[in-house]
Structures are given as structure tokens and as C-alpha cells.
């Protein structure tokens, strides 16, 4: 490929936003069927991607599958050490996910229950505001992207994100302990990282570009319908919007004004 990774991401992002990425790809693989195919694969043309997590259907088993799927997909190693931990998606109890909303009488079924956590792909993301190099930036389709090849590792974005959604490579991820990561890198298609840069969930931008669902959503779908639902919040007819219309949902720390785009049905 004649362009660098960042240009590539940019073009992908732009063309995804315009719905061209998918269409062009479809044209290439199945000439003439592009229009029809796009209707079935609308994943490439969202305007504001978001996710709805149905906590009534969530179990620890689903959580573990989702986490494993994401971390396998993106070569996130297990470092066996919470201090150096890198995580794109993880679980945390209700009390700690919503510390300011917890109370003595909180609904019993959610006490001590684990919630799924990822980057919220905030509408007004402080992480992008503070990054001195624009290594983290918001795409037109709402995805907060991270370019690990531009990041200087100042970790300003980690201080700015009030959701603890970012990880830093304190050491070299390629030197991850072999006992814990026998098959690292788990996905040769995805670039491995060097030490000294920040990384985070990107809503699987690279999969969306191919018309595929994010890895965690795909994994959850294998365990049951609508546990995780991914879609375009800008489209009133999307699955996510339907769920938001018919259920009561909460978000993490809405009072901070970052506008998280991950919703939890409780």
C-alpha cells in the first residue's frame, strides 16, 4: 500500500462516513450488486456509532467471551500484572462502574453484577482535545480513533479521560510473557505496537470498514440476541435507537458533558 497507516485510516474513515468504503469494496467483489448489498451491510455508513448494552441479559460468561474476542482480534497481550495492564474492554461491578449512582438500596439484581466497559466514543471527547499531536482524534462517523504510530506517549489523554478507557504500553507488548500468551500475536492482520504509546478501543473501525460488526458484538451475538447492540445513533430506525426508545438506559458520568455513546439498559 502506497500510503502510511494514518492516511489509510483517514481515507477509510472518510469513505466509511460517506458510505463509499463499503460500496467501493462491494463493487469490486460483486459488480452490479452494490446497491442491494449495501442495504444488508449498512455497517460502513453510520454517522454516529454507538452501543447499547442490555444488562438484564449480561452474564460473566458473555463478558469473558467479549473480552477474549476483542483482545485476540487486536493483539492485546495479557501482561499478568495490573500495573502494566493494557485493556480495550473489561468488566467492573455496578458500584464501581457508576460510583456516583450507587446507593444502599440499589436494585439488588445489579449489586455486584459485572458491567461491560469500553471507550464511550464520547460526542465531546476530552482525550482528543488534550492530545498535542492529534494522535487521538474523532472521525466523522463518531469513532474516537487512536494512531499508535503518531502518539508520543505523553499520556495527557489518560489524565483527561474520566472513564479510564485508555491504556499505555509501559513495556514492550511484543515481549509479553510467553506462558500467558502462547500464540501472540493472536491476529497477524492487526499491527502490533511498540512500547511507549497509548491505545484503546476503536469500535473495531477496521472491521466496520469491511462491513463486519465489532468483535465484542459478534462474540456476544454468538451467546444470545441483543446483549450488545451496535448501530447508528443518528438513524431513528436503527436497532440501537429502537432499544433506546423502548428501554430505560443509563450512561456513565453524564454530568461531565463528554456525551458517552455507550448506553446500558438496566
Amino acid at each position, binding site marked *: 500500500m502506497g500510503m502510511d497507516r494514518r492516511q489509510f485510516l483517514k481515507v477509510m474513515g472518510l469513505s466509511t462516513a460517506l458510505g463509499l468504503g463499503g460500496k467501493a469494496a462491494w463493487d469490486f467483489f460483486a459488480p452490479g450488486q452494490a446497491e442491494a448489498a449495501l442495504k444488508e451491510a449498512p455497517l460502513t455508513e453510520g454517522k454516529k456509532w454507538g452501543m447499547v448494552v442490555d444488562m438484564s441479559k449480561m452474564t460473566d460468561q458473555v463478558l469473558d467471551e467479549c473480552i477474549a474476542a476483542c483482545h485476540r482480534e487486536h493483539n492485546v497481550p495479557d501482561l499478568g500484572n495490573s500495573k502494566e495492564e493494557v485493556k480495550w474492554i473489561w468488566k467492573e461491578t455496578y458500584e464501581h462502574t457508576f460510583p456516583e449512582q450507587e446507593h444502599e438500596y440499589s436494585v439488588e439484581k445489579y449489586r455486584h453484577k459485572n458491567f461491560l466497559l469500553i471507550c464511550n466514543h464520547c460526542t465531546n471527547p476530552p482525550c482528543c482535545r488534550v492530545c498535542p499531536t492529534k494522535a487521538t482524534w474523532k472521525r466523522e462517523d463518531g469513532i474516537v480513533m487512536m494512531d499508535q504510530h503518531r502518539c508520543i506517549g505523553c499520556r495527557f489523554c489518560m489524565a483527561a479521560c474520566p472513564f479510564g478507557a485508555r491504556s499505555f504500553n509501559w513495556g514492550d507488548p511484543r515481549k509479553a510473557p510467553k506462558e500467558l500468551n502462547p500464540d501472540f500475536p493472536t491476529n497477524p492482520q492487526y499491527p502490533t505496537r*511498540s512500547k511507549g504509546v497509548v491505545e484503546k478501543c476503536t469500535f473495531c473501525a477496521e472491521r466496520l470498514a469491511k462491513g463486519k460488526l465489532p468483535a465484542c458484538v459478534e462474540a456476544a451475538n454468538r451467546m444470545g440476541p441483543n446483549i450488545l447492540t451496535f448501530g447508528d445513533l443518528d438513524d431513528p430506525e436503527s436497532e440501537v435507537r429502537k432499544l433506546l426508545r423502548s428501554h430505560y438506559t443509563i450512561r456513565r458520568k453524564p454530568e461531565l458533558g463528554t456525551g458517552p455513546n455507550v448506553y446500558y439498559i438496566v
Partner: protein
Amino acid sequence: MLDKAIKGSQAYWGWLIALVVLMGIGFACYLYQWFEGLRITGMSRDVSWGFYIGQLTYFVGVAASGVMVVLPYYLHDYKAFGRITIMGEFLAVAAIVMCGLFVMVDLGYLPRMLNIMLYPNPKSILFWDMIVLNVYMLLNIIIGWNVLSAERKGVPYQKWIKVLIYISIPWAFSIHTVTAFLYAGLPGRHYWLTAIMAARFLSSAFCSGPALLILLCLIVKKFTKFDPGKEQIRTLGGIVAYAMIINVFFFFLELFTAFYSQIPGHMHPIQYLFVGLEGHNRLAPWMWTAAFFALVALILLIVPATRRRPDVLAVACVAVIISTWIDKGFGLVPGGFIPNPFERVTEYWPTVPEIFISVGIWATGFFILTVLYKVAVSVKEEVAA
């Protein structure tokens, strides 16, 4: 004028060599960090800034405080400070070099540092901090060097220097304000999310910087033929006294807001720092030490009889430096990160290599300071002779 730097006594050379040794040890530790990554520090996913950024913050304050001798001299025509402005300016230069080095050792991917210039983001405070710090350093080097050269030749300095001097006064305030903005605009970091952060930074800078300057003046007086002057030290003592009072007052304002409002998020970091949270209290002894020295400093500074005795003033200055350094160089950064966004406590403690790298940078700062002061003092001695 640099020739002045290479003609010195044995003590001078011994001191410089000692500093070079410390710089070497620091550099060796940095090489270790270079190959292993920042994992060799005590930082973690939850406390992602630590000792290095604390030192950066503290020394930006020291740099900004140079204005405390420049401003009375040039704006209020307080003649006495003419003798020591150069010392304030050169202290600022040394402090800023340290700041730059602390940023550099903190970066995960130093070779890409120029990305800040190649892909600048004007919304990022870090981008502006870099600009104001570099400009301030340039201003101080140019001003200090030219004023000193003119003094040596016995001629008045050029007019354009005066313009730069006037620019440098608000600029000094800006460097510490912008550094405060690095912290003060972040959502969800309650200890930092306070409008008074820049004011607190300036007040602590204006007591700790001049306190250091007083000590340096006393050292210069003892070891060289140049006497910075009794009146000068006395006036600086007054500045330290007022700034320290304001500094402590501002801290009480923070306590009031947090504890009268009773908002948990605002109380937690302060509780963590002073009494511990969920059984974690590693910083508490340090914060109480800071409080103790603040009290000692206040008593010695407020009572005129003690403040005016140079030896007691020196003790008070040391107390001010210890107190402000713990508060700003040590407690401030972890206080913003603990507890983390999940209300969990991950503690932070610098590691040995992290400390040695920092010591190496301090040594570099003192090396530069020593050489610059040597030049300045030699010129002053020469002019006086």
C-alpha cells in the same frame, strides 16, 4: 564572557565534577528506561503521571518566580534589585532546562517528539505549554546575557532589551498559568478541577522561587567576593512571607469547598493525601510533613524579628521549599489520579531508577546554574574591582 566559567577554584571544579557524576548515573538509568520502557517507573494505568511531571510543575514555578526580582526593579524602579535581577533570570533559565528534561524523560516515545510541531493541536494545553516555556527561556537567556555584557563593558544595555524585559514580566505569569491549565481543565479529576489552580500555582511559585533565590544569595555571599546585599535579601524575605501566607490561605479555600460541600468526589483525593483511603495512605506522612514545615515557615516569616535575621530566614526558606515541594512536586499529581475513575485506589511510589533519573536532571539544572552564576558573579567582581 563564557571564559569566566573555566577559571575557578578547586571547590568550584569539585562541585561541577560531583554534579557530572550524578548526571552520568541519571543518564545510565535513563538508558535503562529507554530500553525497558516506562515500566521501570512506579507509574501505572491508574496513576499515569508521577514524579517527573511533578518536578516539571515545581520547576516551572521556580522559573516563573524570576519575575519577583525583575518586576520590582523594572516596573517599580526598585533600584536595589538591580544587583540581583541577573540571578533571578539565570535561575529561571536553569529551571526551564530542567522542565524540558523532565518532559522528555516522561515521554513514552521520545523520537516522535517533533510531532507536536508537525501536527500541532492548538486545543491542547500541552502544545501551548511547550511554546510559552521555550519563549520564556529564550527571553531570559537573551536578557540576562545582554544586560550582563553591558554591565561588564560599563555601558547601558540597548533599548530593545528593555522591550523584551517588559514582555518577560507577563510572560512569567503565563508560563505558570498555562501549566496550571494542564491540570485544571480535565473532567473527572476533582483534585485538579479547580478554578483557583493557577492562583495556587503562582502563590506557591512566588514563595518557593524567591526562597531558593535567598539561599543562593547567601551561598554566593559566602563563597565569592560579590555581596548580593542585605536589603535585597530582606526584601526577598518579605516577598516569601506574603506569598507563603497567600499560598496557605488558598489551600484552605480548597479545603472549605471540598469539605463544606461534602461532595464525595471533591473530598476523596484530599482524604487520600492526608488520612488515606480504604487503608491506603502512603502519602499521608509526607503531606503532614509539608503541613508541619508550612507552619514553621509561617511562624518564622511572619515574626519580623526572626524574618530579619539572615540565619533564621535561611531556615524559614528551607522550610518553605520542603513544604511547597512536597505539595506541588509530589502530592499534586497522585492526588489527581487517586482514587481512579472507578473509585478504586492504586497507589503510586517512585522507583529507584525513576529517582536517579530525576536526580540526574536536578544535577544538570544545578550545573547550568553554577556555570551561569559563576559568569555573573565574576563579572560583578570584575566591575566592582
